[in-house]
């Protein structure tokens, strides 16, 4: 197997190409721009389309149009741009158009900064735009996963006709790691709903307008059923040393790698610590939390924001155990800092 | 004999009178004796003999009410 050194953003772009991505529409923004630049270089080789749009609003609507033809298509951005895309994402979710949306995230609110952050967790997991909908959210923690989740993301998008978002901290987009290049995808989905011209069939219509109240409710129920199916089948998390853990750290993305080191350090010092790393942020892997609560007395959400995922942990726990939070913004804390936090909480809780 | 023949799908008519206004022969008018399902007095041919089948009424009708035939 071929192993190469790649930057996170480029690995993601290469993964998308290997998944058969036929078009990229985007507007430049740090720290996501390498994805666009990689696509601009490579897409012409496979007769694909790269187009720099006039704005993120236009870009996401180009995705809407291109996805409606049945092609695998994507866009990438960061905080301020992802905010502009929300209108389009709401429409895409209702129209059930599969596509991949990347948030190489930075800190907000407002223009914020370009340092790593996970402050778009609420926006990503609650839908983000108007209306009752969700996008699937995958959170990679390594450059390898940047590639793998791009492939997986397109697969899930087509399977469920849902926009899939990959959310990674800017640092993960920028850093380099050796990775195994995945084989190109060769099996694709039939899309009889696509608007490609009605030759040989009845015309297809893609709309999100449902004026009769019964019809609107029906659509919302249909979406809810789909979301329930996804919740029952696609929740993913990595569990590390949780079997007997009394103190469970919960962290996603790069933060989970730091947390893992802190767990090892805590174990060396006799603290029964463990880690749950949500891979799907939506659907949130609450089952993993509930199972860990059989032994755990306290869960500590580690986030690069001011406390967002901790709410999902509390919802999952529903009183079964305590939930605490530690977060920074603009920096990824080092293992020593987190170890100290863990020691402090363990002492306080008498663990 | 009239050279043209117009046919009205009266259930679609909204009585906007554009056909009546633009018929060069004054062959059309509203049928005040009838009310269609949309609640309008639909347009109709009042003087079929005058119709030349020029198609102007259908050209100006916004609601695809009129079909025109010509010799």
């Amino acid at each position, binding site marked *: 197997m071929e192993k190469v050194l790649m930057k996170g953003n480029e690995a993601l772009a290469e993964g998308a190409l290997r998944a058969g991505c036929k*078009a990229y*529409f985007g507007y430049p923004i740090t720290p996501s721009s390498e994805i666009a630049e990689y696509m601009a270089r490579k897409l012409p080789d496979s007769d694909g*389309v790269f*187009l720099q*749009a*006039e*704005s993120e*609003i*236009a*870009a996401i*609507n*180009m*995705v*809407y*149009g*291109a*996805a*409606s*033809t049945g*092609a695998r*298509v994507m866009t990438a951005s960061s905080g301020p741009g992802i905010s502009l895309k929300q*209108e389009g994402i709401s*429409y895409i979710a209702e129209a059930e158009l599969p596509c991949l949306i990347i948030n190489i995230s930075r800190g907000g609110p407002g223009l914020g900064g370009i340092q790593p952050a996970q402050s778009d967790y609420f926006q990503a997991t609650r839908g983000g735009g108007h209306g009752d909908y969700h996008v699937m959210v995958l959170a990679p923690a390594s450059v390898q996963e940047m590639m793998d989740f791009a492939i997986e993301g397109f697969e899930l998008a087509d399977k469920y006709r849902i926009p899939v978002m990959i959310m990674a901290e800017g640092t993960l987009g920028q850093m380099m790691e050796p990775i195994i290049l995945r084989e190109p995808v060769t099996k694709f989905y039939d899309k009889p709903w696509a*608007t*490609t*011209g*009605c*030759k040989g069939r009845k*015309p*297809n*219509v*893609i*709309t*999100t*307008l449902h004026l009769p109240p019964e019809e609107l409710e029906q659509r919302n129920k249909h979406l809810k059923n789909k979301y329930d199916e996804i919740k029952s089948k696609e929740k993913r998390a990595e569990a590390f040393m949780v079997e007997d853990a009394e103190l469970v750290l919960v962290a996603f993305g790069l933060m989970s790698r730091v947390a893992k080191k802190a767990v090892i350090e805590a174990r060396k010092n006799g603290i029964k610590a463990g880690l749950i790393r949500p891979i799907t942020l939506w659907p949130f892997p609450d089952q993993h939390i509930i199972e860990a609560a059989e032994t755990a007395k306290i869960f500590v959400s580690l986030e690069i924001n001011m406390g967002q995922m901790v709410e999902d942990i509390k919802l999952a726990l529903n009183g079964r155990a305590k939930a605490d939070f530690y977060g920074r913004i603009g920096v990824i804390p080092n293992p020593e800092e987190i170890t100290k936090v863990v020691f402090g909480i363990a002492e306080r809780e008498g663990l | 004999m009239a050279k043209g*023949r117009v046919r009205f799908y009266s259930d*679609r008519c*909204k009585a*906007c*009178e*554009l056909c009546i206004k*633009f018929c060069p022969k004054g062959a059309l008018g509203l049928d005040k004796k009838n009310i269609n399902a*949309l609640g*309008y007095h639909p347009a109709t041919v009042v003087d079929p003999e005058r119709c030349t*089948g*020029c*198609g102007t009424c*259908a*050209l*100006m*009708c*916004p*609601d*695809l009410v*009129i*079909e*025109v*035939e*010509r*010799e």
Partner: protein
Amino acid sequence: MKVVAKRPESLYYKKFHYCPGCTHGIIHRIIAECIDEMELREKTIGVCPVGCGVLAYEYFNCDMLEAAHGRAPAIATGIKRMLQDNFVFTYQGDGDLASIGMAEIVHASARGENITVIFINNTIYGMTGGQMAPTTLIGQVTTTSPYGRRPELTGYPIRMAELLATNEGSAYICRTSVHNPAHVLKTKKAIKKAIQTQMEKKGFSMVEILSTCPTNWGMNPIEALERVEREMIPYFPLGEFKVKE
């Protein structure tokens, strides 16, 4: 006897929801006639606006999409870039195209996007009940310019055809009207030319059509047609503004 006028195949028989005498209906029909005559129905993909034309997908007998307000040109771009041999058109009102969707239309034109835009300029927001549009004429009373549009408050109506004609990427830009039979025929010709422009891959094409909104203008349909001639055409002159050979 031979049939001189009947429903085009590219429209379903479904009744339009438009108000009596609203020229949206005339324009729908002539677009459909052009698609029929050019045998493009099975290759056509249309994108509807948010505005009174929002339900046009229920009338056109071909593949159709509904866009977010103003975004139709971006959606059409996405479609056309994937399906370069299809016929892709948008149908947009003045609020949709010249206000909220200004960026999308200007850039689609600047890119020479090979799509056809049918722009319905009725100088008002019809669907939402008659508010001021970017094309509302000076002095025109709307629900949000109740004392008449005053340039010192809200500036001047935008002439989209002229504006887009300055873009190199625009291949065919024309303004027409449907206020009488001769102009309906001219509009049909212009739409055909716009479609031809796209099928020959020459670049962006738009037909701006002066249209009526009898309901929100507070006029009967015939008075509304007269207003087009009397008030609109002097400010929005008809003609071709760009024809790329």
